[in-house]
């Protein structure tokens, strides 16, 4: 058995990923990183969880490995597996193992989607041991300094069907992220999409109103990401009402009355 050589992980992207803090999350994350504590980010879709992790990886100067979890994600998808070559087998590290070896930040996005037996492999990594046992190779991997585990999930989404085990939950420091405040969100939309300030402000006002429909049949409320998409369409010359209908209203619902009400809101918000 041989271990293949990997090219070193690239550091987080060039330039600072744009992030506007809404509370003490940056300081908190820095402290957790220094202490080697695992972090759990909770928040609605598109509120900036992934961007926050990218920003922190840049700030802490660590490589970032992102794994999008799905319901077929098995433990070997995270840890690694033997691959067969013409002349024998070779062990291939999974993303988690790589992060542990190289001291990267490993970000498991939407972790509730993963099978529960998969999440259990994280347990030894998230307590004082900071160990990753790889039973197939018999290796006991000690986490390199700088390794940090970050998971995220959306508490509102399929809450009843899937949830983290309580024993998993309490291994993490939880941070609640939510949509940014009105001013911050307007600033973010303006900066990310390049739209002018009044339009970005109006987009945010529209989003506030649409978010009030959360309990009226709207399963997911419009995220900051949707606003940025709408803004970007405006910048490219599409009239703002049409951009909103295409980027915000239509993706959110198929229900006739809801779409109708949302159209009315768009009509009322923009001149």
């Amino acid at each position, binding site marked *: 058995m041989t271990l293949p050589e990997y090219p070193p992980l690239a550091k987080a992207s060039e330039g600072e990923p744009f992030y506007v803090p809404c509370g003490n999350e940056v300081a908190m994350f820095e402290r957790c990183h220094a202490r080697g504590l695992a972090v759990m980010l909770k928040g609605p879709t598109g509120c900036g969880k992934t961007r926050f992790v990218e920003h922190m990886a840049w700030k802490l100067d660590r490589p970032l490995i992102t794994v999008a979890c799905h319901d077929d994600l*098995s*433990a*070997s998808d995270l840890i690694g*597996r*033997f691959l*067969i070559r*013409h002349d024998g*087998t070779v062990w291939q590290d999974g993303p988690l193992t790589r992060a542990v070896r190289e001291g990267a930040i490993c970000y498991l996005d939407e972790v509730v989607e993963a099978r529960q037996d998969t999440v259990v492999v994280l347990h030894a990594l998230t307590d004082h041991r900071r160990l990753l046992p790889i039973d*197939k190779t018999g290796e006991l991997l000690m986490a390199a300094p700088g390794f940090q585990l970050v998971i995220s999930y959306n508490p509102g989404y399929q809450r*009843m*069907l*899937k*949830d983290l085990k309580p024993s998993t939950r309490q291994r993490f420091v939880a941070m609640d992220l939510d949509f940014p405040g009105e001013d911050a969100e307007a600033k973010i939309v303006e900066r990310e999409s390049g739209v002018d300030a009044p339009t970005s402000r109006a987009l945010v006002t529209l989003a506030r*109103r*649409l978010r*009030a*429909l959360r309990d*009226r*049949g709207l399963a997911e409320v419009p995220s900051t990401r949707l606003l940025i998409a709408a803004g970007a369409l405006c910048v490219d010359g599409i009239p703002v009402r049409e951009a909103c209908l295409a980027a915000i209203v239509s993706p959110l619902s198929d229900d006739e*009355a*809801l779409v*109708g*009400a*949302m159209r*009315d*809101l*768009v*009509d*009322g*918000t*923009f*001149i």
Partner: protein
Amino acid sequence: MAEAEEVLTDAARHATVFAQRLWRRYSPAPDAPASLSLSEVAERLELLLSAVFGNSYRLRIAQPPARPTLLGNWFGRTPRPQRLAAVPATDGTSIWLPRSLDIPDRALAANLYRVMALQQAMRIRRGSALSLWRSLPPLAGALYHLLEVQAAERELLEEMPGFAESVRALRACAHARRPPLSAFGSARRPLEARVRALLIGEADCVPQSPTPEASCELAVRLLAEWGLEPASGGRIGQEPLFADWWTGMLLAPSPHHQHSAGAQSPFDPTQAAPQSVRLERRPDIRQARPDEDESEESGPLMIQLDEPHPHAEDPMGLQRPIDRDDADAELFGEMLGDLPQARLVASPGRPKEVLLADDPPDASANALAPGVSALQRGIAYPEWDYRTQHYREQNALVQVRTAPPGNPAWVAETLESHQGLLEGIRRRFELLRTHRAWLRGQVDGDELDLDAYVDAVANLRAGSGLTDRLYRTQRCAERNLAILLLIDVSGSTDSWISQGRRVIDVEREALLLVSIALQSLGAPYAIQAFSGQGREAVVLRDIKTFEEAYGQEVALRIASLEPEHYTRCGAAIRHASANLMCQPAARRLLLVLSDGKPSDNDDYEGRYGVEDTRQAVLEAVLQGISPFCLTIDRQASAYLPRIFGATRYALLPRPELLPTVLLDWMRRLVQG
């Protein structure tokens, strides 16, 4: 014998009604079917309002005003012109909109509805209807009203600038529909001129007032400044402002009704079913003056023969006993519709006539009586009222009880008699059980598939190429299903089917077999039995919870099932759905076993019950539950498709076959 006076009033009444019917027959037809009605846009409007204002307001149908009476016209109690159409209004909590706008252009009508609703909601937010403007003199009150309308509109446009065009359209429509200036008496003309100027946007001189209180002061000041006060002798009436779609109306806040304790009287089957008739318009509810009921001067015509029925009274203190046996309901409906206001009086006894209105008065009886003791209180669920298209919050109380153990002999006997069937059931359902299985020869997988690898190497040596299907992976073909059986044990299950067996006997037998079958399936399941009497006592018995395993105790509880009260399905389905949602499963199956239509001893009978049950099923579907109904009611095809949808129910032609059919369906549903 009838008094002479009574005969006279009766004759006069019939004459009036006849004349009015004649008059109406030659009046133009009401509305063309094409025009947009409020019910078509109500849901959309409600969503819009709750998004803009963060509050949900109840949308109600505005009533047209009472037709002016001949006498009223002659003696000129209210100066002309009088409003004939329904206008939007608010009382500070609800919003009234006209039933239809009678505009052929549906897009324009939708646009107008939208602006009217937003304007009324903005007036609610400002608190326009709640301030003390009623203490102002009528003209100042009219000015206050205009100031508030103007201020609310400005606030609306500041927030939603995109509606400026729609507001202009509404103003133009309102302006075009006002009666000509010449129709107004000289006293009302200056005010009317001001209103028109406002409507076409020429009166910029109206200052913006920040609060309704400021509007009150401003109105008094403007009244003097503009010199609107009529010369002595000019009649302006109580409502000098001619209300239209733009101005709308500010109604008095709805008072709290007093719940009459013990108003529910025992059901008396000897009484004839009440006559019902649809009201053209419902009179406004008038509050009793404080001294009214005590006053001795309530008129010589006040006759109280026996126990009072709920009846409507006219506002002038002439408490006419018109709710009488011989008066036909239609006549009564018309007379009531002509009254501008009526008091709502609740009294015990069964009504003789039921009057249906588009906008039923706030029913205080719908709220739970405060007297219900804490012990009796159960889990409250809302009920859907199709007439108002709204939920009645906390309308039904579900009381969860456990079932007492029944007769062990019955269990032993039933199991004995179905011994042969049982083995087969167990085997068939065990086959449906799911296991974790290794899938071999996969392109990608958790582990190497050694067998495949050996084969591949051998093939390679023999000269063929190396296949890439060398891994094995563990797949859990899990069903991930939770099942809840909801059994109807209402009184109707007491009926006999054959061989001296009742519906309930067959149900019990089927339940026992199905629980054994489900136990071998290995999926979590629960059994609940329900019946109810009145909305405060929907009894739900837990026969088996999700947590416990099938055993003798469960069998004994099944044995104890006996017919109870009525079938108040909605609350039971809601409770079962809530239980089912607590189960961590990807698929959830709610199987309702029923023997008849939703019913109860109150208004749950008939369409109300069907619609509420339908709504409960819809809620379950929205939560991701798959509901299914098995029924032995032969008439079920009349209402079950409405409740469960065309594909979610099955009819059992021969109830005695229930055990086998239920098992069969269970298998189909589980596999599906």
